[in-house]
């Protein structure tokens, strides 16, 4: 099939345009953007698919916007032997015409034209319309073409693979075989449950047959055994009869021999008794002799022990006296140590006592100081209680006094003054006070408020200060009053008295403020309470010590004692021991100072240590002496015990021997032994005689025969019993088994077994046939598919090698779509490839298909505005691939960017006109 010419009128944005396609090779159709994408593919599809009367949205879409005109598509086509022009006008003045030029002329219109056009396509291309699959509209370009079931392609591929094609009939056969196979086998090829169950049933039925056969065999054995047992029983009974007779014969013979047997037995018994008696007599004699010997032995031992005791006595005595002397020395050394200890303790007490007294004196002094401080503080507090004239109060007073004097000055300046100049001496009264004036005497008076001047008998003048001085005066009067109040409050009359009082106040305050500091110094970190407590404790102790000393050495003058206490010497009376041991040079009777007392105490300690060491040494020595003595004493005690025991044993032996002799005398014991030995000789003789007689009769053999016969009878009887028992048991078993119908059951089981086996064999054979057929069909089918895939895969790979440099392999799936691309050893699934690569591969696939079906059945590849995702370098290579395909196929490319395809050599360039 080839498209030769396409003419569009009123098609989307195109008013009228016509393009001619190269029958073989690449035609690039340039179309402006606005005409709508995919116009060519769309136009082809609309033309072939829809009747002119169609209202389908695809058809409606091609009408130009806002123009009520008919859209017209006209196409010149070559397909197989046909060459025709197919025209359709939609929307308005609808019409369909088909003008066939070859192989013979035909002109059709309307429905007939539509039908005929479709018939020609089907006739020349088959049902599948492969060209539609190879036409790519924009928006579809990433998808791989759906090639599976494309019979035209499949036919070509099969031809290319050199095989015959298969179709629905074969697929249907395959499905049927699969169904048959599925009756017996699972998808994974294992036998189905039913088949396995049937096999198990066969096994079970075989097992049942075997089991029954075994049981029946056992039954047969039992039957045989039963017969054998019966026969044996018969034989045994015959033998029993025989043996019984023989036994009777032997018994008769034996009874004659029985008397001899008895005598022999009796003699043997007597001989045995006599032997036993002789043994007893000999034993008694031996016991008596042993007793006597033992007595002699112990007597000898006792004498020896006694001699040893006497020999050891002097040494023990000497050791004893030495020990006693040593022990005396120990006592003396221990007494000496005690005396040293007592003296050392006393010295220590003296040291303590002296220290206490020193301390007591110090504390007494401190208490006195504290008392003095307390009194001074009390005096100060008393002063402060009445004297309030602190520094602040004094300052306040002085301040008021200062202000007052200022106000007085002010007032004096402000007040009017009266100047009276006497012209003559005259007495006048000023404010009632008579003043005698000399002539020319001038009297000046200030008028604080008012002043009355009277010249008696002449006149009276009243001078008033007027309002101008009123304020000053008031102020001054207030201050004066205030000052008076302050003085009164402070308890003083005037400022001078206040200053004296303040000096006393300050002194008392100073006393108080320094008191604490002084007290702390006196206390030296302690508290008054602690000091008082310690003082009291010490006093009590000193008193106690004094009292003790008094009671020990008689009453002492209390005054003297107090004086002693205050002087704090140690004046304890020496103890009697001290007195005895005192060395006037080293140990002066009185000491006054602590240091001396300590020296004395250390000396006493040293003396005590010497005494203790001496005692230890002496004690070590005495321990040695005691050990030696103890050893000697122990040895002597052991000997005494031995002596005692031996004496006891001797007396016991004496007692036993006496009892024994009282029972049987020594001579009697000897006589008995002799008599018993004679009896033995006699019994032995009789025994030998009887034995001889017995042997002469061969009685032994007779008895052995009898016993043998009896045993045989007994044994046969036992055998018979056992056989009867076995027979009974077998018969019982048979009785039970016989009723079970095992034979018939076995026949049944065999029949069943054969039936299920045959049935299973038939099923198995059918299953095997199904398996053989299905697996063969499956393998052949897969192989066929693989084979037909190969040419397409090769063609795509060939094209892809142009586009993608380097090593490259393309893998196709069952459905003929690309599953993966392997480039430089890396395999990438198709879905994971980039959009551009996918688009390129999908175009290459179409080109490959077109190349495969090229020839009379060839179909064009129509690409609408593709390769938008492709870069420049790749575009160049795609151009080469398009050109290669163009050598055998018709390739039509619609683009609005014609430049994309400049790399396609020998491409025909056409333009789809824009609307005018």
């Amino acid at each position, binding site marked *: 099939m080839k498209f030769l010419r396409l003419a569009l009128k009123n098609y989307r944005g195109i008013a009228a345009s016509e393009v001619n396609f190269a029958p073989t090779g690449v035609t690039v159709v340039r179309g402006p953007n606005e005409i709508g994408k995919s116009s060519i593919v769309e136009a082809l599809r609309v033309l072939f698919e829809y009747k002119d009367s169609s209202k389908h949205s695809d058809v409606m879409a091609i009408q130009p916007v806002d123009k009520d005109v008919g859209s017209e598509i006209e196409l010149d086509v070559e397909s197989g032997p046909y060459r025709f022009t197919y025209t359709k006008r939609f929307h308005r003045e609808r019409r369909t015409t088909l003008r066939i030029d070859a192989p013979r002329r035909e002109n059709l219109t309307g429905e007939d034209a539509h039908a005929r056009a479709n018939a020609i396509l089907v006739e020349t291309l088959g049902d599948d319309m492969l060209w539609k699959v190879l036409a790519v509209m924009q928006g579809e370009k990433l998808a791989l073409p759906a090639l599976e079931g494309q019979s035209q392609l499949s036919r070509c591929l099969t031809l290319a693979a050199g095989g015959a094609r298969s179709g629905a009939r074969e697929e249907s056969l395959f499905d049927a075989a699969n169904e048959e196979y599925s009756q017996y086998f699972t998808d994974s090829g294992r036998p189905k449950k039913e088949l396995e169950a049937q096999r198990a049933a066969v096994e079970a039925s075989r097992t049942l047959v075997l089991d029954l056969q075994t049981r029946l065999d056992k039954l047969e054995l039992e039957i045989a055994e039963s017969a054998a047992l019966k026969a044996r029983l018969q034989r045994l009974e015959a033998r029993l009869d025989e043996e019984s007779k023989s036994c009777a014969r032997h018994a008769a013979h034996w009874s004659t021999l029985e008397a001899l047997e008895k005598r022999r037995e009796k003699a043997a018994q007597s001989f045995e008794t006599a032997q036993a008696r002789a043994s007893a007599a000999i034993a008694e004699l031996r016991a008596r002799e042993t007793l006597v010997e033992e007595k002699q032995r112990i007597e000898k031992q006792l004498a020896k022990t006694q001699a040893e005791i006497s020999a050891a006595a002097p040494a023990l005595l000497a050791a004893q006296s030495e020990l006693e002397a040593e022990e005396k020395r120990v006592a003396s050394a221990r007494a000496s140590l005690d005396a040293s200890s007592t003296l050392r303790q006393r010295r220590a007490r003296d040291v303590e006592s002296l220290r206490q007294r020193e301390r007591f004196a110090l504390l007494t002094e401190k208490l006195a100081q504290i008392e003095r401080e307390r009194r001074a503080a009390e005096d100060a507090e008393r002063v402060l209680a009445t004297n309030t004239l602190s520094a602040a109060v004094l300052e306040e007073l002085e301040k008021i006094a200062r202000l007052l004097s200022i106000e007085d000055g002010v007032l004096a300046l402000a007040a009017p003054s009266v100047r009276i100049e006497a012209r003559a001496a005259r007495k006048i009264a000023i404010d009632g006070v008579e003043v005698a004036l000399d002539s020319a005497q001038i009297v000046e008076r200030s008028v604080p408020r008012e002043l009355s001047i009277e010249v008696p008998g002449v006149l009276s003048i009243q001078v008033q200060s007027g309002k101008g001085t009123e304020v000053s005066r008031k102020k001054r009067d207030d201050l004066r009053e205030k000052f008076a109040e302050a003085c009164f409050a402070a308890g003083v009359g005037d400022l001078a008295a206040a200053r004296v009082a303040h000096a006393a106040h300050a002194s008392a305050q100073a006393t108080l403020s320094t008191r604490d500091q002084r007290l702390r110094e006196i206390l030296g970190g302690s508290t008054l309470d602690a000091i008082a407590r310690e003082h009291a404790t010490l006093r009590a102790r000193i008193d106690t010590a004094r009292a003790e000393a008094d009671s020990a050495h008689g009453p002492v003058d209390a005054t003297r004692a107090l004086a002693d206490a205050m002087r704090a010497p140690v004046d304890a009376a020496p103890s009697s021991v001290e007195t005895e041991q005192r060395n006037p040079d080293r140990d002066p009777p009185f000491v006054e100072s602590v240091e001396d007392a300590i020296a004395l105490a250390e000396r006493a300690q040293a003396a005590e240590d010497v005494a203790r060491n001496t005692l230890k040494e002496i004690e070590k020595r005495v321990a040695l002496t005691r050990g030696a003595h103890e050893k000697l004493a122990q040895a002597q005690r052991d000997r005494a015990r031995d002596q005692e025991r031996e004496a006891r044993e001797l007396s016991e032996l004496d007692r036993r021997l006496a009892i024994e002799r009282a029972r049987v005398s020594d001579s009697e014991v000897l006589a008995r032994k002799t008599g018993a030995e004679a009896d033995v000789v006699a019994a032995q003789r009789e025994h030998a005689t009887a034995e001889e007689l017995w042997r002469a009769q061969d009685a032994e053999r007779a008895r052995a025969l009898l016993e043998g016969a009896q045993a045989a009878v007994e044994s046969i009887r036992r055998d018979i019993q056992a056989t009867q028992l076995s027979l009974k048991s077998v018969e019982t078993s048979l009785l039970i088994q016989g009723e079970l119908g095992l034979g018939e059951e076995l*026949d049944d089981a065999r029949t069943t077994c054969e039936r299920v086996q045959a049935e299973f064999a038939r099923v198995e054979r059918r299953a095997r046939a199904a398996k053989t*057929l299905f697996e063969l*069909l499956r393998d052949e089918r897969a192989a066929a598919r693989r084979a037909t895939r190969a040419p397409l895969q090769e063609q795509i790979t060939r094209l892809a090698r142009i586009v993608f440099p380097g090593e490259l392999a393309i893998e196709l799936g069952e459905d003929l779509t690309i599953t993966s691309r392997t480039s430089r050893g890396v395999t990438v699934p198709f879905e994971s490839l980039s959009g551009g690569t996918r688009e390129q591969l999908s175009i290459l696939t179409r080109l490959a298909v077109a190349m495969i079906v090229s020839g009379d059945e060839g179909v064009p590849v129509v690409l609408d505005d593709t390769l938008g995702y492709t870069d420049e370098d790749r575009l160049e290579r795609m151009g080469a691939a398009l050109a290669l395909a163009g050598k055998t196929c018709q390739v039509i490319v619609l683009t609005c960017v014609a430049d994309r395809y400049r790399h396609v050599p020998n491409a025909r360039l056409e333009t789809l006109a824009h609307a005018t």
Partner: protein
Amino acid sequence: MRFLHTGDWQLGMTRHFLSPEAQARFSHDRTESVRALLALAHERACEFVVVCGDVFETNQVSRSTVIRALDALATSRVPVYLLPGNHDPLDAGSVYRSPTFVEKKPAHVHVLDDTTPRVVRPGVEVVGAPWTSKRPLVDLCASAAENLEASAGTLRVLVGHGALDVIAPNADNPALVRLANAEAAIASGKVHYVALGDRHSSSSFGSAGRVRYAGAPEATDYDEVKPGHVLVVDLERDTFRVEEKRVGRWNFVTLRAELSTDSDLDALQAQLASFTDKERTIVKLTLVGTITLAQEARLSESILAPMREIFGAIENWERHTDLVVRSGDADFESIALSGFAANALAKLRTASASSDAVTRESAEDALALLLRLARRRA
């Protein structure tokens, strides 16, 4: 004096080629034949019935078989003498000593458990030669006759079991019944008729014909001659007459057919259809020839399968069957496969011509299946 001679009832016998339903029918009919022969004895005024061994198929028959047998025996008052044979010997496991048998046995039924003559009526005695084990070491009939004295006024029937030396393939078997001994006993007048069992075909031996097998009253196998009969015997010292009466209903048939064309198949079909009493007929087929896959399909699916539903049984006698199925071009002409299916078909056909039997069979089966599936689809 008239009595009925029978034997080899083989009650409890099963046949492996029978379907369960057919087996049930077979077992039922075997008991029915006992009733029939007792009815005959009654009808023909027989004085007694002798059953010459193998009354039961085995000593280890089921209780129900024993009970059904005794129930059938109880339908008549005619005295019946049962002889233990090689299938049901009087050993420790004997069915005749089983509690069920002892308890249910009717008074007129007697077991010939020793060789002591049983007096049926004064002047008529039955002497048994019972089997006491499966492998006796003597001619039991001769032993039984040995102790007998000839008696002028007494007719004696010796009841025995076993193969006669004159027809036995192994002459060394010590248990064989020596025809000479039997004839001597008859000649000496100790016995007047030797009633034998073991052989399922009715047959007579000896110069006077007084040594006889009655045959099985119901057929049990293909190789039996005139089975299904009992003998009504009129016996006198000087004369005797034997009448064979059929009581059995089953037939065992061996059928041989050569198959190579469709008409051969037609013939076989017609022959099978022609049998009367098909449900009591057991056929053993011997098929010879070469047929196509399609013919084989017709044979097994259209001819044998439906017939098997009707007949007692249709067996293939494997040993004698030589039927070769060859897939021919004709088989595959109609189905016209191409592509992978054609390849598969070609491979199968190659394999079907293989010299290896297993490969060939497997390929033929697969071809037959392919043919069936392809036709079904078409």
